[in-house]
C-alpha cells in the first residue's frame, strides 16, 4: 500500500514565482489593498512620495535631495510589492495543491435517477446536482458529488483524494456510507444521495481557505490586525506631530523623510506577511491531507487542552499480536511454539499471522507444511484454527472457551493415551491440574490487558499465547510531549476497564474512558468543557456525530458517515485518527508564527529610530549626532538604509512565514523564553546590523 501525499512544492518553485510576481502587481488594486490596512497605508505613502519625487527638481532643497527622494519613493513601492508577493506566493502554493485535487472533479457527468427505484437515468452535469438528488454510479464511473450511499455496495478507489491506492468498500447503511466526489467506483453499483450544495463540497471549502481574496480572517488574525492598525495610528500621530515640534525647534524636515519614518515605524513586516502566514498554515494542513471547514477551527486546534484519542489505530495497531508463548508445566517452550505455528498456518487473521511470525522470529522455526494432512482454517464460528498431521496428531489453537470445549469433545482414548495427564471427569467436563495452571495464566494475560489464546495437542493443553495490543512505537514519547505542552490525552476504548488501564499505563496516556459508548464520550466532553477545557476528538460513525459537534475540534474521518463529516469541523482524508496530534501542532505553529513575527516587527523599530531620528534633527541640533550609534554615513544614507532594510526584511522573512517558525513541543514558559529570545532580542539586534550593512553598501556604491 503506497501513500502518495500531494507533493510538497519547493519554497521558491519557479512555476509559482512567476505568477506570484505578476499577482503582486495585480494586487496593487486599491480594492485588494484595503484588506490589509498596514500595507494600504504604505501604498498611500508611496503615492505621495512618488508625487514628491516627481516634483523634487522644482521644489528645492527644503524638500530633500531629489535623488534621495526618488530612491525613497521607489523603495516604498518595493515594500508594498514585496508584501503582495508574499501573499501571492502563499496563495499560489495553496492553489497548486488545491488545483491538483480539483482537477479530479471538473465537470463529471452524472447519471441522475428520478427516484431511488427508477430504472432509467438522465445524464446531467455533476455541477448541476443539488442536495437530495439520487445518482447511479456503476463500475468505472467517477462519483460526481459528495454524498451518501443509499443502495448497494461497491468498492471505491479514493486514491485521487487520499492517495491510498487500495480501494475501499462503501455500502448503504452503517458507518461506511459516505462517498466523496471525484472518487471512482471500481466494482459493483451503488446509488448515491447527494449531500453537498453546489460549490460547497469539502474541496471547495478548502480552496476558499487558501485563496487570499475570499479568505475569511481567523479570530486571532482579526485581533492582531486591530492591534497593528492601532500601532499604525499611534505612529501616524508621532510622525505628524514631529513636524510642528521640529518647527518649534527651528528645524525643517523634508516631508519625504517624514514619510520614510512613518513607513519604517508602522509594522509593515508583520502587516506584509500576516496573510501569507495564515494561508501557509492552511496549506500545511492540506499537505497532511486534512481539510478544515473554517480557519477558525485550525486556530482553535492550537488551544486544545484535552485530546480524546481512539485506542485502536491511534495508540495501538489495529490488531493484537502474539507477544509471548507461555508453556504449561511439562511442556517445552519450543514444543509449544511448534504446535502454535502449525495450528496458525491456516489462520489468515492478523493474529494468526503474528503467531507464525513470532515462532519464526523468536524460535527461528520454519513451518513444516509437509507434516500436515489437513488444515482447519479459522472461522468466526469455531473461533479456532489448527491442523491434523499426517501422523494423526490433532493440533488446535483458539479462544480459551473454544479450545476447552474442543478438549472436552476429544475422544477419551486420545487423552488417555497421554500418561501423566490424568483427566478427571466431573459434571460432564474434564479438568486437570494443567487446566488449573492454564486458567491462572489466562487470567494473568487478561489482567495485563492482553488476549489469551490456548494451544492444545490431542486434547492436551500445551500453553497460552499472549496476544497483546501492541502500542505504537514512539507514542509514549508523543504523549510526554503533549503533556509538556499542557495537553492531556484521554484514551477512548470499548475494552473493559482492566484491559484499558493496562494499555493506558503502557502507552502513557493521562486518562482513559473504558467501555466507551457515544453517550459516554459526549458526557466526558461536556464535563471537560465545563471545567474550562477545550476538547478535540476524532470519530467516524453516525453515533459519533453528537460528540463531534460538541467537541471544540472534531475531526471526522473521511470514510465515516456523512453525519459525522458534517458534525466535525475538520475532515481527515486519510482517516487516520493519529492526525489529531498533527492538527494541534499546525494550529500552534500558525499562532506562534504570527506572534513571533509581530514581536520581531515591533522590536525592529528601536533600531530604525536610532537610524532616522538623529538624521532628521542633526541639522537643527548637531549634538543629536550622539544618538547616531550606528555611525551611519549621512542623514540621507541613514534614512534610505532604514527604508531599504524595512522592505528587504519582508522578502527575507517570506520563507519563515511560509514554513512557519520552528516549533518543538514544550511548555508555554519555555516556548515563550525561547521565542522572546529569538524574535524579541533578535528583532532588536538584527536591524542594527542590517541597516549598518546597507548604509555601507549605499555609501560604497555612491547612491547617496
Amino acid at each position, binding site marked *: 500500500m503506497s501513500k502518495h501525499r500531494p507533493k510538497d512544492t519547493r519554497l521558491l518553485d519557479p512555476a509559482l514565482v512567476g505568477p506570484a510576481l505578476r499577482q503582486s502587481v495585480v494586487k496593487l488594486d486599491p480594492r485588494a489593498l484595503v484588506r490589509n490596512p498596514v500595507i494600504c497605508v504604505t501604498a498611500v505613502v508611496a503615492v505621495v512620495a512618488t508625487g514628491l519625487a516627481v516634483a523634487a527638481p522644482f521644489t528645492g532643497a527644503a524638500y530633500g535631495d531629489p535623488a534621495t527622494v526618488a530612491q525613497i519613493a521607489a523603495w516604498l513601492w518595493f515594500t508594498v510589492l514585496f508584501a503582495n508577493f508574499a501573499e501571492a506566493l502563499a496563495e499560489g502554493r495553496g492553489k497548486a495543491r488545491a488545483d491538483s485535487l480539483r482537477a479530479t472533479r471538473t465537470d463529471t457527468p452524472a447519471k441522475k435517477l428520478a427516484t431511488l427505484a427508477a430504472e432509467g437515468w438522465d445524464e446531467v452535469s455533476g455541477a448541476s446536482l443539488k442536495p437530495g438528488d439520487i445518482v447511479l454510479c456503476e463500475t468505472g464511473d467517477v462519483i460526481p458529488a459528495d454524498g451518501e450511499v443509499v443502495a448497494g455496495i461497491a468498492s471505491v478507489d479514493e486514491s485521487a483524494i487520499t492517495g491510498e491506492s487500495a480501494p475501499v468498500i462503501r455500502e448503504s447503511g452503517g458507518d461506511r456510507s459516505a462517498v466523496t466526489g471525484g472518487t471512482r467506483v471500481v466494482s459493483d453499483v451503488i446509488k448515491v444521495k447527494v449531500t453537498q450544495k453546489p460549490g460547497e463540497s469539502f474541496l471547495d471549502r478548502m480552496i476558499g481557505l487558501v485563496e487570499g481574496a475570499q479568505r475569511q480572517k481567523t479570530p486571532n488574525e482579526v485581533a492582531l490586525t*486591530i*492591534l497593528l492598525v492601532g500601532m499604525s495610528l499611534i505612529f501616524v500621530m508621532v510622525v505628524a*506631530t514631529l513636524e510642528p*515640534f521640529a518647527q518649534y*525647534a527651528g528645524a525643517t524636515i523634508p516631508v519625504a523623510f517624514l514619510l520614510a519614518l512613518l513607513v519604517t515605524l508602522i509594522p509593515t513586516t508583520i502587516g506584509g506577511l500576516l496573510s501569507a502566514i495564515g494561508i501557509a498554515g492552511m496549506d500545511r494542513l492540506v499537505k497532511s491531507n486534512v481539510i478544515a471547514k473554517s480557519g477558525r477551527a485550525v486556530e482553535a486546534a*492550537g488551544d486544545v487542552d484535552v485530546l480524546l484519542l481512539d485506542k485502536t489505530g491511534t495508540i495501538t495497531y489495529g490488531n493484537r499480536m502474539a507477544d509471548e508463548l507461555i508453556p504449561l508445566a511439562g511442556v517445552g517452550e519450543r514444543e509449544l511454539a511448534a504446535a502454535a505455528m502449525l495450528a496458525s498456518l491456516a489462520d489468515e487473521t492478523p493474529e494468526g499471522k503474528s503467531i507464525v511470525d513470532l515462532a519464526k522470529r523468536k524460535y527461528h522455526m520454519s513451518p513444516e507444511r509437509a507434516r500436515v494432512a489437513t488444515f482447519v482454517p479459522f472461522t468466526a464460528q469455531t473461533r479456532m484454527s489448527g491442523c491434523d498431521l499426517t501422523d494423526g496428531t490433532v493440533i488446535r489453537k483458539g479462544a480459551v472457551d473454544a479450545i476447552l470445549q474442543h478438549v472436552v469433545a476429544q475422544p477419551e482414548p486420545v487423552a488417555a493415551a497421554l500418561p501423566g495427564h490424568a483427566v478427571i471427569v466431573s459434571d460432564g467436563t474434564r479438568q486437570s491440574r494443567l487446566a488449573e495452571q492454564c486458567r491462572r495464566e489466562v487470567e494473568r494475560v487478561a489482567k495485563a490487558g492482553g488476549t489469551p489464546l490456548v494451544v492444545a495437542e490431542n486434547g492436551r493443553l500445551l500453553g497460552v499465547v499472549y496476544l497483546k495490543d501492541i502500542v505504537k512505537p514512539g507514542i509514549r514519547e508523543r504523549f510526554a510531549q503533549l503533556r509538556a505542552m499542557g495537553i492531556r490525552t484521554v484514551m477512548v476504548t470499548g475494552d473493559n476497564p482492566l484491559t484499558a488501564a493496562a494499555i493506558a499505563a503502557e502507552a502513557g496516556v493521562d486518562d482513559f474512558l473504558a467501555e466507551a459508548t457515544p453517550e459516554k464520550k459526549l458526557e466526558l466532553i461536556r464535563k471537560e468543557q465545563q471545567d474550562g477545557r477545550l476538547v478535540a476528538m476524532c470519530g467516524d460513525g453516525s453515533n459519533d456525530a453528537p460528540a463531534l459537534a460538541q467537541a471544540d475540534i472534531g475531526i471526522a474521518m473521511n470514510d465515516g458517515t456523512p453525519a459525522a463529516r458534517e458534525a466535525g469541523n475538520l475532515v481527515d482524508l486519510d482517516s487516520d485518527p493519529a492526525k489529531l496530534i498533527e492538527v494541534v501542532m499546525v494550529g*500552534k505553529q500558525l499562532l506562534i508564527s504570527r506572534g513571533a513575527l509581530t*514581536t520581531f516587527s515591533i522590536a525592529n523599530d528601536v533600531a530604525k529610530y536610532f537610524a532616522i531620528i538623529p538624521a532628521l*534633527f542633526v541639522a537643527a541640533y548637531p549634538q543629536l549626532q550622539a544618538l547616531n550609534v550606528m555611525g551611519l554615513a549621512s542623514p540621507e544614507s541613514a534614512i534610505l538604509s532604514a527604508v531599504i532594510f524595512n522592505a528587504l526584511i519582508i522578502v527575507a522573512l517570506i520563507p519563515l512565514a511560509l514554513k512557519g517558525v520552528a516549533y518543538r513541543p514544550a511548555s508555554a514558559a519555555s516556548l515563550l523564553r525561547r521565542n522572546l529570545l529569538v524574535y524579541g532580542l533578535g528583532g532588536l539586534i538584527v536591524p542594527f546590523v542590517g541597516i549598518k550593512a546597507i548604509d555601507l553598501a549605499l555609501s560604497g556604491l555612491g547612491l547617496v
Partner: protein
Amino acid sequence: MPMTDLVQLALFVVLIAALAPPLGRYMARVYQGERTLLSPLFAPVETAVCRLTGTRPDADQHWTAYAFAVLAFNLTGFLVLFAILRLQHLLPFNPQGLAPMNADLAFNTAVSFMTNTNWQAYSGEAALSYFSQMAGLTTQNFVSAGTGMAVAVAVIRGFVRRSGRGVGNFTVDLTRSVLYVLLPLAIVVTLILIWQGVPQNLMAYVPATTLEGGQQLIAQGPAASQIAIKQLGTNGGGFFGVNSAYPYENPTPLSNLVQVVSILIIPAAFCFLYGRMAKDNRQGRAIFAAMGVMFLVALGVTYGAERAGNDLIAALPVDQSAGNMEGKEVRFGVVNSALWAVTTTAASNGSVNAMHDSFTPVGGMVPMFLMQLGEIVFGGVGAGFYGMLLYVVLAVFLAGLMVGRTPEYLGKKIEAKEVKLGVLALLSIPLGVLVLGALSAVLPAGVASVQDAGPHGLSEILYAYSSATGNNGSAFAGFGAGTLYQNTMLGIAMLLGRFAIIVPMLAVAGSLVGKKVHAETAGTFPTHGPLFVGLLIGVIVIVGGLTFFPALALGPLAEHFAMTGGLAY
C-alpha cells in the same frame, strides 16, 4: 552614593514593601464586602448612604451602567466645583475677601480636581477662599481618588470574576473607597502632619515684619487635612502655591517621608488587592515587581543625573559637590528631591518638593517619561492599576501568541474586542500629549505660554501636556499655564487622559467578566514570574519609548547632549 542617601532611599522602599501588602489585603476585604476592623464604625454610614441614594448594596451593575454612574457622578462634581469657584466671593470662609475665579481658569481647575489631576494654574493662597479649598477641592480630592479606586476595582472584577455579568456597584465602591480607605488614612496622616507643624486653622493671614524690616503676609488655613488627602489620593494639588516645597506644607524630614510614602502606598496596595481578588497572589506580586523595577530604575537615573550636576555650571565657581541644587530645597537636597520627583510622577500625584524645571535634562526627562507611559508605574490611586492592566492585556496578546495559543489572561481569552478597546484606550495618551502638545507648539496662543527658547521650551510644553494627559498635575515652572488657551486645552487633555481610558477599560472588564474561565495547564501562558515581569516592562518601555522618543529627542535629549557638549539655550 553617600550612606545617608542610601539609608533614606532604603527606608522608603522598606516602608512601601512592608505596608502595601497588608493594606492591599484589607482593601480587598473592604471591596468584597467582608467584615473588617472598621466595619462597626462605618457600616452604618454605608447603609445610610445606600438608603439615601436608593442603592441596593448587592445590586451588580453591567459595565455600561457602571460607566454611566461614573460619568454622571463626575459631571455633577465638576458642575458643583465650577459653581463654587465662580461664586466664592458670595460664599462663607473667605477672610481675605478673594475674588471669584474667571471662567476658563474655573473650568480648568474644576476639570483638574475632578480628574484627580490637580493641575493648578493658580496659586492657592492667592486665588482660593477657605471654603473653595475645603468644600470644593478637598471634596474632589476624596471623591476623584475614590472614583479611580472604584473603577479599578470594577475593572479587576471583570478580570477575576468566574461568573456573573456585572462588575460591581459604583455607589457602593465609591462609598467604601472614601470611608474605609481614604478617610482613616487621611486622619492618621493629618495628625502626623499637625504634629510636625503644618497649620490647620481658619485664621486670616498673619502679617509679619521680616529681619530686613519688610512686610510679609504669612498664609494660614486648614492645610494639614488637605495635604494628607492630596498625597494619599494622588491628587497633588497643594494648599499653597509652591506645594510641598513650602515649609508650611512640608516642614520636617519626617513629614517629607510620611508624605512621599503616602503618595505611593495606595497604588502599591492595589497590586496586593488584585492578587487577593484573583485568588492568586503571584499575579499581584508580578505586577508589583514590574512597577517596582521601573520605579527603581527611574529613581536611579534621576538621582544619578541630579547627583552628577550640570556640566555647564562645573566650569563656574559654584560648588556642585551636593549635586544639581538649582530649584531644590536645601532641607531636602538631591536625594529627597529626586525621590519625590520620581514618586510624584510615577504615581499620578503631581505634588512637588522641588522645581522639576530646574532638574538636569535627563533628571527632568525621567519624570516626564513616567507620565507619558500613562501613569502606570504605580500610578494614580486605582487609575494606575487599571492603566497597568491595559498594558498587561497588550503584553499578553503580543507575546501570548508566541506560545501557540489564543492569548489568555487569568484563564480568560484576550480576543479582538479586548484588543480593540485596549488600543482605543492607548490612543488617548499620544492624542493628549503629542497632538495637543504639537498644537501648543505651533499656535501663537500656545507658544505664548512658554518661557524658554529652544529644546527646553519644548520640554516645558511636553511636560505640561504629559502631566495633564497623565492626570499628574505637576509642571515645569517655566510654563505659563493660566491663559485662556492653555486652560481650555489642558482641560481637554485631562478629560482625555481620564475618561478615554476609564470607559474603554470598563468595557474590557464588561467583556471579560462573562467569559468562560479556561483551566490552567502547562500550555498556559505564564503571567507570573520573572519572565512575564520582564516582558511586561519590555512592552511598556518599547510602546512608550516608540511613541515618545522623537519628541523627547527634540526636547530633553537635545538639551542633554547640548549640555554635555557645552551648549546652552
